[in-house]
């Protein structure tokens, strides 16, 4: 990790807290999931936490971000309350989508998350419309399309780049590139480098998505570009997926080797925080413990919440 001194301690700790919340939630889900207490398939974000944390620290509630199927990380980073997410995973009416959405369809109007789609790429054009709407309605907010490398295969991805560039839409295209589309390596599902071609349409930024400071810096530039130009930008973050595409088993694909130290955005960032004396070992441990308490509370809240009324089939 490169040394950087520009970051303020409270921002650094906020990003750490976000990453650890995403990680510790995943670690809670892993042993619980086989017990079928959750009503939904889950796509965990272990290894990819830095992308959400480094991006969302630059976003405001008025910025509208639509997610793909791997929602927990970006939704929590954007502000979705933990207990609202956990209750949704448990299929309870107190969940963020009132037990109608599940892990792949989370909503939070207060924090600028008008949904997420399980259709890969399905959210991208919607984000362009959100950005255009922000502009036409005179909001200073921007749209954010949060998608993975698999979505760049889809026609709607290219349509959206073109539309956003032509109409000068304030939208950020955020590609969280974990190099895998389910089990297909990127080289087998995408012929070219989409970020390079996106450069024909808009400014492109690239970050190391396992290094939260790299994402923090590049996302800062990309978001500022969208805010100031009121036009689009593209941010490409390479990262690694530790778990299988869906579910709670670790990935064992020979072409996706994981080094639990070097590839871990949390280990890397904590080392940085200690080295630069932005945090002490005691402070780091306290963050983890506080999150454990939040998780206890969130899971208890979810378990105590009601299931939807079977009579209320329609919304």
């Amino acid at each position: 990790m490169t040394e950087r001194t520009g970051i303020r301690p409270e921002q650094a700790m906020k990003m750490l807290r976000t990453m650890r919340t995403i990680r510790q939630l995943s670690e809670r889900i892993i042993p619980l999931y086989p017990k079928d207490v959750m009503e939904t398939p889950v796509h965990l974000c272990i290894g990819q936490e830095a992308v959400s944390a480094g991006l969302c620290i630059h976003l405001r509630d008025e910025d509208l971000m639509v997610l793909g199927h791997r929602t927990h990380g970006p939704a929590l980073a954007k502000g979705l309350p933990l207990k609202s997410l956990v209750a949704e995973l448990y299929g309870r009416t107190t969940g963020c989508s009132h037990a109608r959405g599940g892990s792949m369809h989370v909503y939070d109007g207060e924090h600028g998350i008008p949904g997420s789609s399980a259709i890969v790429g399905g959210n991208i054009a919607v984000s362009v419309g959100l950005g255009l709407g922000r502009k036409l309605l005179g909001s200073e907010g921007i749209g954010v399309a949060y998608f993975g490398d698999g979505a760049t295969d889809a026609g709607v991805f290219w349509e959206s780049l073109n539309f956003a560039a032509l109409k000068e839409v304030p939208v950020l295209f955020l590609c969280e590139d974990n190099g895998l589309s389910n089990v297909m390596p990127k080289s087998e599902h995408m012929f070219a480098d989409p970020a390079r071609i996106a450069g024909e349409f808009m400014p492109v930024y690239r970050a190391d998505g396992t290094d939260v400071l790299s994402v923090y810096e590049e996302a800062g530039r990309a978001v500022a570009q969208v805010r100031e130009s009121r036009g689009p930008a593209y941010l490409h973050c390479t990262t690694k997926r530790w778990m299988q595409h869906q579910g709670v088993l670790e990935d064992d694909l020979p072409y996706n080797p994981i080094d639990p130290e070097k590839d871990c955005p949390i280990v890397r960032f904590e080392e940085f925080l200690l080295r630069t004396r932005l945090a002490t070992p005691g402070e780091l441990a306290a963050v983890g413990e506080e999150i454990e308490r939040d998780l206890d509370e969130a899971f208890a809240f979810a378990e105590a919440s009601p299931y939807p009324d079977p009579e209320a089939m329609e919304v």
Partner: protein
Amino acid sequence: MTTMTLLQAINDGLRTEMKNDDRVLVFGEDVGRNGGVFRATEGLQEEFGEERCFDTPLSECGIIGTAIGMAVYGLRPVPEIQFLDFIYPAFDQIVSEAAKMRYRSGGEYTCPMVVRSPYGGGIRGGHYHSQSAEAYFCHTPGLKVVIPSTPADAKGLLISSIRDEDPVLFLEPKRIYRTMKGEVPDGEHVVPLGKGRIVREGRDCTVVAWGAMIETCLKAAEAMEAEGRTIEIVDPRTLVPLDEELILESVKKTGRLVVVHEAPRTGGFGGEIAALAAEKAIAWLEGPVRRVTGFDTPFPYTLEGLYMPDPNRVVRGIQQTFDW
């Protein structure tokens, strides 16, 4: 009141609602500078500016996706798909995103978007400028499907659709765009969704039809007069929500039912109306329900006249509810 064609009434409906509500935006391929290939959006860009009426790339999926994003956060987009035959690239956005927005968010978000599109045969458009795809959308919970057959209804239903909180497919029978003329109320004019109309009263057989097929059925009904049978024609105006009550009331009165549509027979919406009668009016039926429809083939090129239901085929369909 002003006498207008169906096309002028749609233009008037758009203009009225754009004046009334500055959240309403119109966009699509060739709708701005050109005023639409059928001229439905003529003059709107001049009057309301390029922000509220604009051209898009040839990119149906992107057009509808963008419209959805606008709709969920405070705007009232009315995108146009130039021909209904071109809607398939946008099918995913309509079916997977727009239709499910309200449900999957537990009612937190709605998607007030109206997708306008000319549909149906009769202009010698061939395979990809003639299809009637209404059944696909009727089959998708979360969507409303509206089809006007008169100028006054076109304006009134369009305004209701724009004001509706949910996504609406507004299908315009292009064959009668210019041939169908009628009185249209000036300014505010609202026709509620879910309320059909009796086009013509009769005692002996109910014919349910929509869009350009109403005219065809009226001719058939006149021909049946010569045989001493009076035909009641019901135009549901909106297939979803469907005015079941109006259809059932008519079927119970006449004891017979024929459904007429241009779309292919199998899986067509006529089957749904037949099922409605079978489920809720079987005891009143005095003969088999008949469907007069397009054929189970792609829309033909040179055989358009044979493919589309005409008055003679409708007459035969009606006769078959008596002679069986």
